[in-house]
């Protein structure tokens, strides 16, 4: 018993909602164990209770009004009965957690490096300077470029992926025995993702780190864990060695899940035919020329810099592109390459340092009408004080709709279409799972029937079935309303599935752009090739082999 790192028995978690005595059961009798140095993957439907289980391991539900059942032991500590001091010792030092919402999990007021150093100093008696140095070194390990300088930046100066890596760094800084990673790579491009997974693998091998990996990406799970736990509706529906589960799923849900995994090499679903291949160079001809259709949005030499002097960062360095009605432009690329910045400039939330954005041929000033964005951070993009239903209804109200019944009906319909329950209308953002929040963001963007939606990692937190449902919805609406979509994602498979064209970004520039099949099948730029190679494969053995190739010789 005592040699188990994690021992969960009959875990039941009920969240209080609304009135007194009203509870929602999020986890319903889950049991599992995990030995030291082992890796357990939890996969499952969005909202099935994965994060709740993960949080229970650190006793994060204690004293919050949540009702708990069953027992949880981590590294010999009874989490339910431990004293506050014991709990503090456990947290961070013995077992550390990477939260699912990396973007709002850092303190906006302090430098990232200081935050990591602070955590280190809580558990290790070291000087401030030593802690800082340690923070820089872990940041460097998780692949933050120029870590010394970047450690002094505040979270808002980081890209999504960088923030996620900062959180991983924070989790690793005290060399815990157990790492609970809740969707740790959702904001990372595949190459960085591979790097992180390799890092974790290395730690497991060398330091005996136990890994509890919550993920919706079956590929990631296949690469990184020994055992798989499949959850649905608060229950564990299947559990077994990863290869077995993947090869021969027993539960129908697991089967459905695996079937829905998009494949990079899979033939693309037929999409409504479109004139393809409007390269940046060709834009002018199309827009100005012989009565051809004017692009919904057009960027001309967009640049954006942040900071001054030594702190200056060029996030986007001269990007031109055009997206026409009914068309989807996929944007993939390195984490921190300026995708979100570009997206924000396209919708007018950010002023370009130079260059222009045209909407339907007109120079945009301020925020043009009919544009929407799905934000990369679903947490901060929802007002914590408004129910999600209100958030979704908001664009409708803003558009002048006055009929309350109609507004509500429409919001409810949208909720349903993104896979949420109508009963969720009156819930607040903090009462949702990560994936559910993301879907709320999508529903809100869809509500006002925009001309253009910039989706910044819209499905990164969704399990594959839900992902499929949501992308289908997007495609459907696009066809119906001729929406132009800019689809920023790191999941190359999904991008291939939804895009007409794809642009590959690196260091603020588009290194390659073209019709999606062409780019995927015949990548011209070496970086594109590197990206495509790094996509995780579903076969654990293949993954191991690949890792061996990458890490082995060193």
């Amino acid at each position, binding site marked *: 018993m005592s040699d188990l790192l994690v021992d969960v028995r009959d875990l039941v978690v009920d*969240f209080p909602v*609304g*009135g*007194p005595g009203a509870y929602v059961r999020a986890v319903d009798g889950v049991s599992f164990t995990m030995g030291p140095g082992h890796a357990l993957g939890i996969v499952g439907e969005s909202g099935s209770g994965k994060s709740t289980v993960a949080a229970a391991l650190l006793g994060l*539900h*204690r*004293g*919050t*009004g*949540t009702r708990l059942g069953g027992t949880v032991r981590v590294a010999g500590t009874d989490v339910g009965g431990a004293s*506050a001091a014991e709990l503090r010792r456990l947290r961070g030092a013995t077992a550390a957690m990477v939260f699912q919402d990396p973007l709002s999990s850092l303190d906006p007021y302090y430098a990232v490096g200081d935050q990591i150093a602070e955590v280190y100093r809580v558990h290790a008696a070291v000087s401030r300077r030593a802690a800082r140095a340690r923070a820089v070194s872990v940041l460097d390990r998780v692949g933050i470029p120029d870590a010394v300088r970047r450690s002094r930046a505040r979270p808002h100066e980081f890209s999504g992926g960088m923030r996620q890596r900062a959180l991983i760094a924070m989790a690793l800084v005290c060399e815990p025995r157990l790492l609970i990673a809740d969707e740790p790579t959702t904001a990372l491009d595949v190459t960085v993702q591979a790097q992180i997974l390799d890092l974790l693998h290395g730690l497991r091998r060398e330091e005996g780190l136990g890994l509890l990996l919550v993920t919706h990406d079956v590929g990631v799970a296949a690469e990184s864990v020994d055992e798989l736990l499949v959850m649905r509706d608060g229950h564990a529906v299947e559990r077994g060695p990863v290869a077995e589960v993947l090869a021969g799923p027993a539960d129908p849900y697991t089967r459905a899940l695996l079937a829905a995994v998009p494949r990079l090499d899979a033939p693309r679903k037929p999409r409504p035919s479109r004139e393809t291949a409007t390269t940046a160079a060709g834009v002018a001809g199309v827009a100005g020329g012989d009565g051809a259709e004017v692009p919904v949005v057009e960027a001309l030499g967009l640049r954006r810099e942040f900071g001054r002097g030594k702190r200056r960062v060029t996030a986007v360095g001269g990007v031109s592109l055009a997206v026409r009605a009914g068309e989807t432009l996929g944007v993939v690329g390195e984490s921190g390459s300026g995708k979100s910045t570009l997206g924000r400039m396209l*919708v007018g*939330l950010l002023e370009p340092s130079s260059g222009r954005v045209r909407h339907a041929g007109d120079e945009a000033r301020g*925020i043009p*009408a009919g*544009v*929407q*964005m799905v*934000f990369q*951070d679903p947490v*901060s*993009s*929802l*007002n*914590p*004080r*408004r*129910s999600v239903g*209100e*958030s979704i209804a*908001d*664009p409708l*109200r*803003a*558009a002048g709709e006055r009929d309350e*019944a109609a507004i*509500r*009906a*429409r919001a*409810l*319909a*949208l909720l*349903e*279409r993104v896979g949420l*329950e*109508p*009963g969720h*209308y*009156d819930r*607040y953002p*903090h009462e949702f799972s990560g994936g559910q929040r993301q879907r709320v*963001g999508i529903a*809100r963007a869809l*509500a*006002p*029937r925009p001309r253009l939606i910039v989706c910044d990692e819209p499905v990164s937190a969704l399990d594959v079935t839900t992902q499929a449902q949501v992308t289908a*919805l997007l495609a*459907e*609406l696009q066809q*119906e309303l001729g929406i132009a979509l800019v689809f920023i994602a790191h999941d190359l498979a999904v991008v291939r599935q939804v895009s007409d064209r794809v642009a590959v970004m690196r260091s603020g520039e588009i290194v390659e752009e073209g019709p999606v099949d062409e780019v995927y099948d015949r990548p011209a730029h070496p970086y594109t090739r590197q990206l495509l190679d790094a996509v995780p494969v579903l076969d654990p053995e293949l993954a191991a082999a690949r890792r061996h190739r990458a890490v082995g010789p060193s």
Partner: protein
Amino acid sequence: MTVLLEPAAPAPGALAPGAGPAPRAWRRLRRRPAALLAGGALALLVLLALAAPLLAQLSGQDPNAYHDDLVDSARGGVPLGSFGGISGDHWLGVEPGTGRDLFTRLLYGARVSLLVALGATVLQVLLGVVAGLTAALGNRLLGRLIARVTDVMIALPLLVLAIALTAVVPPDFPRPLLLVLAIGILDWGGVARMVRAQTLSLRGLDFVEAARLSGNSTLRIARRELLPSLAAPVITLAALKVPTNMVIEASLSFLGVGVKPPTPSWGQMLSGAQTWFRADPAYVLLPAGLLFVTVLAFTVLGDGVRTALDPRAGSRLRVGTRKERTA
């Protein structure tokens, strides 16, 4: 499947009736006994103030009647008898010097004080919030203009304005209303500055950006996205403005813009009583005690409302509690 954008029939039974944000806040508030108690106390005070004439009749006293026989004229007019002259007729004793009945004066004083405190506070909060939001959200020019106007309002001493007011306002203008207006319109700079500062921090957040994208006007954004987040400090500050306003009312009364004598107010009674706190402690303690109860009630209620307005506090998932710390 293409029916998405057409209104769908609401899912049956999906919604608890009246589960909107306001009712939920109310529900959360109802679970806080201290806040309810405070609300009750305030309601009682207001009720007492409203019923002042009735209660005065009940006690058989006129708040303005002098009782020369109840004070010791040779000793500066200190009330005869113990505890400030408490007796069967004068339940809370009498005022030094004049012998006026304190119970009824406190009741009538409550009318002015509560009205001024509430009215002026509401006005200050309204103006301050509007000015603060405009300063933070308006376009560059407007923002700066409002910020400078706020500076002017902060810098202009109330006193100087009040003196001028005495000259401008016709003498028969209702005084309590004048007070509410004067204090409310002149002293909102602090609220405005605070709201501006908070808004500057909030305005770049993603959810505000999202609201901007949805084509919300700045006004709507301010109302729907920012106000709820501003509520906490504003409510707290408002609760603190209550006693300040009562004291301002008292000092304005000294300058002649206050309520007309012999109409009493707590603030006036208190400032008149300041030298008496050794010779006749009851005279000081009564208005001071009432002021304290009012402030306490406002603060506790404000705290309750603040907590109730934050949906996250309801489940206390993130706030954590003492229990967790001591567990």
